[in-house]
């Protein structure tokens, strides 16, 4: 095991970062969120096909890159740094993990298309689902097909395939309607998905694949949160060096300096826990991996929010403007802190995993 980055992982990072620098500047993202949907299809095609991120987690036998959670985590760090509006987390991690876990030949067919970047998928669960108590939905299988409404789904607008847990099985559907909510997170909005007697293909005979994929994705979400926090720290440090008040850079005031030093210390530890989760997940969701995931979420969620809040505060008035990208990160960080289990849900899970039992 290693908490460092391998050379290959660094190369992957460089490739993703170069594409994002070229096509996903803060101003580009700001402009996109003014439209109906923030998602950038061209950017996604370049990342998915040219860089090959869509099939990272898919084995080579199914047309993917056969990489691991460690590489996917590196991609998420970069996507977080850029608050990139692409369906990597929702399709290439969450939906892909459901299909990999399902292991059926129907799932394999969908995975081939996903890996090639030809289609994307989403899972019909609320983004707020707690992996430890995922709850159900009210979708029912009737004679004519699947019917029901699932709120707060992320990535559904750009999904060709929707994976729907129904009872003990998971179904794939391609006919569904998506109504995007006015969402806190401008770069990854949530939507209400409606199925009306939708024709479906059964891709898994058990619904276990869904909580498994939720926990796995929660572990990798920590790397996205790390990327968000890193951007906020770097941007704020740069601003503190350049903004002058009282005839000196604001970064020379100790009240500012010490806050940034503390934030740096939090981010250093965010990197350690996020890398640990990514590394542990290479062996699947063992108990050690579950502990690493819960630790990473419990640490990185509040750190990303805090980093974004500090970013706004230390930018002063400009930090409150729509024009400055800080708010995109604050909104993403805050939404991420609810996504896939809040920090408190993950701490509760640690009670069992780390042997710290609750009072009777």
């Amino acid at each position: 095991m290693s908490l460092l980055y391998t050379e290959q992982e660094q190369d992957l990072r460089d490739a993703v970062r170069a594409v994002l620098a070229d096509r996903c500047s803060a101003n580009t993202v700001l402009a996109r969120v003014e439209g109906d949907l923030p998602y950038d299809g061209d950017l996604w095609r370049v990342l998915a096909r040219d860089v090959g991120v869509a099939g990272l987690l898919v084995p080579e036998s199914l047309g993917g890159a056969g990489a691991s959670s460690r590489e996917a985590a590196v991609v998420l760090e970069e996507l977080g740094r850029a608050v990139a509006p692409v369906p990597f987390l929702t399709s290439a991690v969450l939906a892909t993990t459901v299909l990999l876990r399902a292991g059926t030949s129907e799932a394999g067919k969908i995975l081939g298309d996903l890996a090639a970047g030809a289609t994307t998928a989403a899972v019909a669960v609320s983004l707020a689902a707690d992996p430890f108590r995922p709850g159900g939905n009210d979708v029912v299988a009737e004679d004519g097909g699947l019917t029901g409404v699932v709120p707060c789904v992320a990535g559904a607008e750009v999904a060709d395939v929707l994976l729907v847990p129904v009872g003990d099985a998971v179904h794939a559907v391609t006919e569904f309607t998506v109504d995007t909510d006015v969402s806190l997170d401008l770069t990854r909005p949530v939507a209400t998905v409606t199925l009306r007697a939708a024709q479906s293909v059964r891709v898994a005979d058990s619904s276990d694949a869904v909580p498994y994929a939720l926990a796995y994705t929660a572990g990798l979400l920590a790397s996205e949160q790390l990327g968000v926090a890193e951007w906020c720290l770097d941007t704020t440090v740069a601003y503190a060096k350049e903004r002058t008040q009282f005839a000196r850079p604001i970064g020379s005031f100790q009240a500012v300096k010490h806050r940034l030093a503390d934030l740096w210390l939090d981010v250093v530890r965010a990197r350690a826990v996020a890398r640990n989760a990514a590394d542990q997940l290479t062996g699947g969701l063992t108990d050690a991996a579950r502990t690493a995931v819960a630790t990473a979420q419990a640490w990185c969620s509040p750190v990303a929010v805090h980093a974004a809040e500090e970013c706004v505060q230390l930018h002063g008035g400009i930090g409150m403007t729509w024009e400055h990208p800080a708010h995109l990160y604050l909104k993403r960080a805050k939404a991420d802190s609810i996504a896939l289990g809040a920090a408190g849900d993950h701490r509760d899970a640690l009670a069992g995993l780390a042997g710290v039992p609750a009072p009777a």
Partner: protein
Amino acid sequence: MSTKLDATSARERVRAFVAAHRDVTDRVGFLRARFDAGLAWVHFPEGLGGLGASRDLQEVVDAEFAGTPQPDLGKQGVGLGMAAPTILACGTDAQRRRFLRPLWTGEEIWCQLFSEPGAGSDLAAVATRAVRDGDEWVVDGQKVWTSGAHHARWGILIARTDPDVPKHAGMTYFVCDMAAPGVEVRPLRQITGEAEFNEVFLSSVRLADDLRVGGVGEGWRVAQTTLMNERVAIGGEPVEPGGGPIGPVLETWRTRPDLRTHDLHRRLLALWVDAEATRLAAARFREQLAAGLPGPEGSAAKLAFSTLNQRLSGLDVELNREAGLRYDDWTFRRSDDVDMFGRDAGYRYLRAKGNSIEGGTSEILRTVIAERVLGLPPEPRTDKNVPWKGLPR
């Protein structure tokens, strides 16, 4: 050494050494032999307790020596953690040969004579004077908070040798003979009841010039070597999940279900996460060092560790309820050691308060991180380019 030592050959060497010294039962005898075999600090040069090997092999060697007689990390802390690397980096060959071996075996204990009543965080303000007299220096002044001075044979000392130049330029680094006439050590009682540290009065103490470490006026540079090593040493050793300072709290939590409350549970889980994040960051830092990529994260370890230790020991006192109302022993006595695991939560709580003061306060560390790691501009200073003797005190 002709062939480079790797982990396997290091392990073999230690095994062969341990096998050959099975019948050496006295601690000092064993440690002397370990030094002579180059297995004290493998990255030190041959003949000086090492093999000129890479630094990361030390962990392998230490693990292999588990269960054998060990140096006393409490009493020997200043010697092993600070004096040894400084003497190696900045001392003369004669000093290395004279001091390192008994330092390693614990036959000679070291203390750190840096802080003074008027120079704590602002260490470069030291007022203790050293005046040259032929082949000797005459030292006058007062040091304070000197941990373990009552055990010490030698002290690492910084003193002012030139008051007419700016403060950083006028200091010189010495090894102080604690047995010399004019050295007086008086205990200072701490909030824990005992006296771990002391005040040390230096009155016309005569030190031979060969006890000077580094050039005259280079004391600040030499002291930086010491301080860097101090912060690494305070940052802590590798531990397992749930190990280190959270260990005793978890032990009480698990064995005393009657003490559990929902509030404590919530806070303990948050501290578990904090401890694990801090532990993993330290593990990652060690990995970087081993890979030859030392990062700035080292300066983070001490800051993170002291906050964590204070929060944990504070929670521990509350968790203990009635036992938390009692204290094990307020007797004013000289302590040998800091005992973070053998004593009650109350002692740990009080002793941990020192963690954010000793070895550079948390405020100073934040400034160091902000300026050296993040590159933020320094605060305006009024004490630069002014002769030391003209500074307000």
